[in-house]
């Protein structure tokens, strides 16, 4: 009790210094909690997409990251659509959905919001049935998905419709063609909110990638369903071995995509954590310097305690308790700051990009981690000053000016 009372008294005696220390550590914790919550948000969003899609194998250009979204594959190039017929002939394959995606920023005179990154979306040329079978979780907010699925028609994700003030009947130019908006989707909280969907052939032609007499059409993503999922791996191998396509495409089962995605996200999380660790290290050095300064001001006071008969361990405890109180308070403020920061990031991204899928998620686990990290920071930063002052010579400490 004596040690607690003294520790609390010492902290309140130097209010400004204590407040500054708390603030410094709280910022480091808030930053870490914010970063982890973004990482968590991405993870949740990706897992969500994977879970919702009903596909077993994806085919992407060789070297592309196999993401279960056409958008991610488009940057790595394309491959000829003649492969579709060959894939369809493989025994286990029950459905093939060839798609062609392209990054797209509409040129419009008026938009709701968005800065430099604002409004970046993906236009996806998809075959008939893709929206119903593969992206069955998407719902129309207004308009229709026309049947037959052909011509220069466009179904727009909610985020893009919002940013570009698109409504049924709006016309936007994609590549060399003018597309008419015929449907607008409800917000799904996935990457699809930043997407446009149009018939495959129309998008291929808009970008000069349509089939002609001289050359086949281009694709950069194929979604495949199989009859027997247990042999999907073998089916993917068969696709990879199709004569003439080995060097341009890569097929992977959804399971291995999920595994790779997990690895990628794990790596991203590690990078985020490393970034957080830098701020934490700064926090530790901050507390360390404050504690060293604080104990150097109290050398005589500690000497007096020791003269009275207080043992070294009491002095050690006193400094560690002061560091612990500081860091726990800082941890609490840091977690509150982290929650606010994560909300700001979510709102900021939604405002500037018109999408809601990048949502920072603060879980109780992250908050507990924030407090625990603060505690570890405080105690580790308090150890050396506590040890140093506890070891000081009583006579010298009493003479200290």
């Amino acid at each position: 009790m004596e040690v607690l009372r003294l520790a609390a008294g010492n902290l309140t005696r130097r209010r400004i210094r204590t407040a500054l220390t708390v603030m410094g550590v709280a910022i480091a914790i808030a930053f870490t909690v914010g970063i982890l919550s973004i990482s968590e948000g991405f993870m949740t969003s990706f897992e969500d997409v994977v879970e919702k899609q009903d596909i077993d194998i994806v085919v992407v250009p060789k070297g592309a990251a196999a993401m279960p979204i056409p958008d991610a594959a488009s940057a790595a190039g394309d491959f000829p659509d003649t492969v579709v017929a060959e894939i369809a002939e493989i025994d286990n394959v029950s459905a093939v959905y060839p798609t062609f995606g392209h990054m797209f920023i509409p040129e419009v005179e008026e938009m709701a919001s968005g800065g430099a990154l604002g409004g970046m979306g993906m236009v996806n040329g998809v075959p008939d049935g893709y929206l119903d079978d593969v992206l069955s979780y998407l719902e129309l907010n207004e308009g229709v998905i026309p049947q037959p699925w052909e011509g220069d028609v466009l179904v727009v994700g909610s985020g893009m419709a919002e940013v570009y003030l698109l409504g049924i009947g709006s016309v936007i130019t994609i590549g060399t063609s003018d597309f008419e908006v015929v449907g607008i989707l409800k917000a799904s909280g996935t990457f699809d909110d930043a997407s446009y969907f149009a018939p495959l052939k129309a998008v291929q032609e808009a970008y000069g990638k349509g089939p002609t007499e001289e050359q086949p059409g281009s694709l950069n993503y194929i979604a495949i369903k199989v009859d027997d999922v247990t042999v999907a791996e073998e089916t993917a191998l068969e696709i990879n071995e199709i004569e003439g396509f080995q060097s341009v495409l890569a097929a992977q089962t959804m399971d291995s995509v999920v595994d790779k995605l997990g690895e990628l996200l794990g790596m991203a999380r590690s990078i985020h954590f490393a970034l957080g660790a830098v701020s934490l290290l700064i926090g530790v050095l901050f507390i360390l310097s404050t504690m060293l300064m604080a104990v150097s001001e109290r050398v005589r006071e500690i000497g007096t305690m020791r003269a009275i008969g207080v043992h070294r361990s009491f002095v050690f405890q006193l400094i560690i308790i002061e560091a612990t109180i500081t860091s726990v308070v800082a941890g609490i403020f840091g977690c509150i700051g982290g929650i606010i920061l994560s909300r700001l990031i979510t709102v900021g991204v939604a405002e500037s990009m018109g999408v809601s899928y990048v949502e920072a998620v603060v879980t109780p686990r992250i908050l507990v981690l924030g407090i625990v990290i603060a505690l570890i920071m405080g105690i580790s930063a308090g150890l050396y000053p506590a040890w140093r002052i506890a070891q000081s010579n009583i006579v010298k400490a009493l003479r200290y000016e």
Partner: protein
Amino acid sequence: MNDIVLETQNLVRRFVVGDHEVTALNGVSLVVNKGEFISITGPSGSGKTSLLNILGCLDREDSGVLLFEGRDVSQMSDRCLDDLRLRKMGFVFQTFNLFPTLSALENVMFPMGVAGVSRNDQMGRAEELLDIVGLSLRMRHRPRQLSAGENQRVSIARSLANNPVLLLADEPTGNLDSKNTKEITDLFKRINQAFSTTIIMVTHDLAVASGASRQIRMMDGKIT
């Protein structure tokens, strides 16, 4: 019953200052009986404070023997010495050395808290001691709210908290004006008489020293 509180035999303490070795205590032998009020005087560098530090177990001698209530202190561990200081000794410093975050009452309670005395008993004893030193109306004040004389009274009350056998004071009037010096000197005399507490006081002030029952003078690390 043994009436000797402290006994030293041929105490030697040396310090290295720069390239030189300085002998602060050069064979000090001394017997302090229970209830004595001893003053130690001498010029600066004569070894007064070095002797007080060793008698108070704040420092260790290089050679010689120190017996406290018949026990050889040189053989004790640091933890035992901490305990000895806590329960058997009280210290009064020139600069008071009160804990600035604690009130006068809490400062006096502090050594009792460390010794494991219950909170109620701490408070009762602290109030009693502050009453004895004339500060019953200023118990809740922090050190910075008290005058130098009042701070030294709190310091004396704190030194008596665990009912020590020996009270050691290093220049206790060094920072006080003449009025407070006289009052503090009288207070030491009263404590010595009322509680039979053995007091050893280092001072430059010969008038203060003359109030003691035995005066020791030091020169060049020896008792003269």
